[in-house]
């Protein structure tokens, strides 16, 4: 069964966002999403310093099953991308909430996180699909 950590926020398009102690926001895809996709074979990440807007495309994840856009959960500037995924895209399957993160943002407005789904609401959405 998929895991839904309580301490992070989710988007109905299956990304997660975690507010770090230094005020940055880390983004990835949920355990449920990686289960649905199957083995991930490529990840396309945004450029560092790119400006991204909430709910707009910021990358692509390709699995054996399908290609899916990755949407930015909040608006901000990309300050880091997870280069591990270049050579080891399967990290997204193995560790979706930790080693398999996609990118980090410096958010324009940290309160945008409040609009995202808490774990229980997101789990409910996934389980009713």
């Amino acid at each position: 069964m998929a895991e839904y950590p309580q301490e992070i926020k989710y988007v109905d398009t299956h990304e997660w966002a975690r507010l770090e102690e230094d005020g940055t926001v880390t983004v990835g895809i949920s355990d449920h999403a990686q289960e649905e996709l199957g083995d991930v074979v490529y990840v396309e990440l945004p450029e560092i310093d790119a400006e991204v807007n909430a709910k707009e495309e910021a990358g692509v994840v390709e699995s054996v099953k399908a290609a899916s856009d990755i949407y930015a959960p909040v608006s901000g500037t990309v300050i880091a991308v997870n280069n591990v995924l270049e050579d080891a895209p399967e990290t997204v399957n193995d560790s979706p909430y930790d080693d398999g993160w996609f990118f980090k943002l410096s958010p324009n407005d940290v309160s945008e996180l409040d609009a995202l789904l808490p774990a229980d609401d997101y789990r409910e959405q996934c389980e009713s699909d």
Partner: protein
Amino acid sequence: MSDRPNAEVRQTALYSRHLALGARIVDFSGWDMPVHYGSQIDEHHQVRRHWGVFDVSHMTVVDIEGRSATDFLRMLLCNDVANLARSRAQYTAMLNPDGGIVDDLIVYRRDDGYRLIVNAGTRDKDLAWLQAYADEGAHGHVVDVSERPLAILAVQGPDSLAKMPELLSAMGLTPSTLRPFTMAEQGEVMMARTGYTGEQGLEIILPQDQALPLWDALVEAGCAPVGLGARDTLRLEAGMNLYGQDMDETITPAEANMSFVVNLKDEHREFIGRKVLETQTVDREMIGVIMTDKGVLRAHQVVQAGNRVVGEICSGAYSPSLEHSIGFARVSKEREGALKVQIRNREIPLKQVHLPFVRNGRQAYSEI
């Protein structure tokens, strides 16, 4: 996952075992089938490097018997069963009068009659097609067309032939040393040196109540359960077509890289579709392509030569063995300039290659 809310979804004799093994189940032509048991890519490698077992009981087994069975199939199939010795298998196709492919199939020559293995997704139309021609009694044909509710296990991979005899003899079966594309029957069990992976192996067609003991014995012996996801990437690497994706009723064999199944040698044999095949102008072909840039080829992506659209991708996938994407493209024969594919508003270079992509565990293609 199902697009068939009102249709009855069927399950094979191994369904509960798939669930117990943690399979992800998807609706596959009206059947609840395992797509993988954890990782499709790991299962793919198991078959290329060791051995694996697939439940392909969703496929349809049809026996053709009666004194006109040979004449009947010489009319219905574009390859010629007159060339098929006892215990041998042949890859072939049923065509419509326009030369389009109704289905691709394997036919086995038995002691008395023939056994066809046709696709699950085309079961209803295939049975209706066969039955209609049988009922018509054209040319005085007397044939019996009967679907058999049997299970099918495919055991494939470089280790499979070394390890299978002991397992089968433990079940009271004595598999002779089968050559490729031959089969042997013992009671109700048929063992055939056929497959859909590009590796050596067997397909075992057997009564449903014998399927679970054989499956469990295989898994106990270290044979990996493999889902239909890996089956798709294995067959594509092996350069083998998938009905519905690479060919259908609007596509003739020459347009699907399948001319080798059309046998025109006996000029008196009037098989369905022959007249069109003999006179058609073939202006498109299906070719093997690889893409070494990031991304995955998938069905219906647009293919260009130079700046002109010349066709589209049929089957496409990430190749676990080659670690880049591979596919078939149906393209105009008249084309100039470098091949490219459009993926998300980008043009990515393709290279045309000789098929297959992979055979017996190794890269087999060469660039054209």
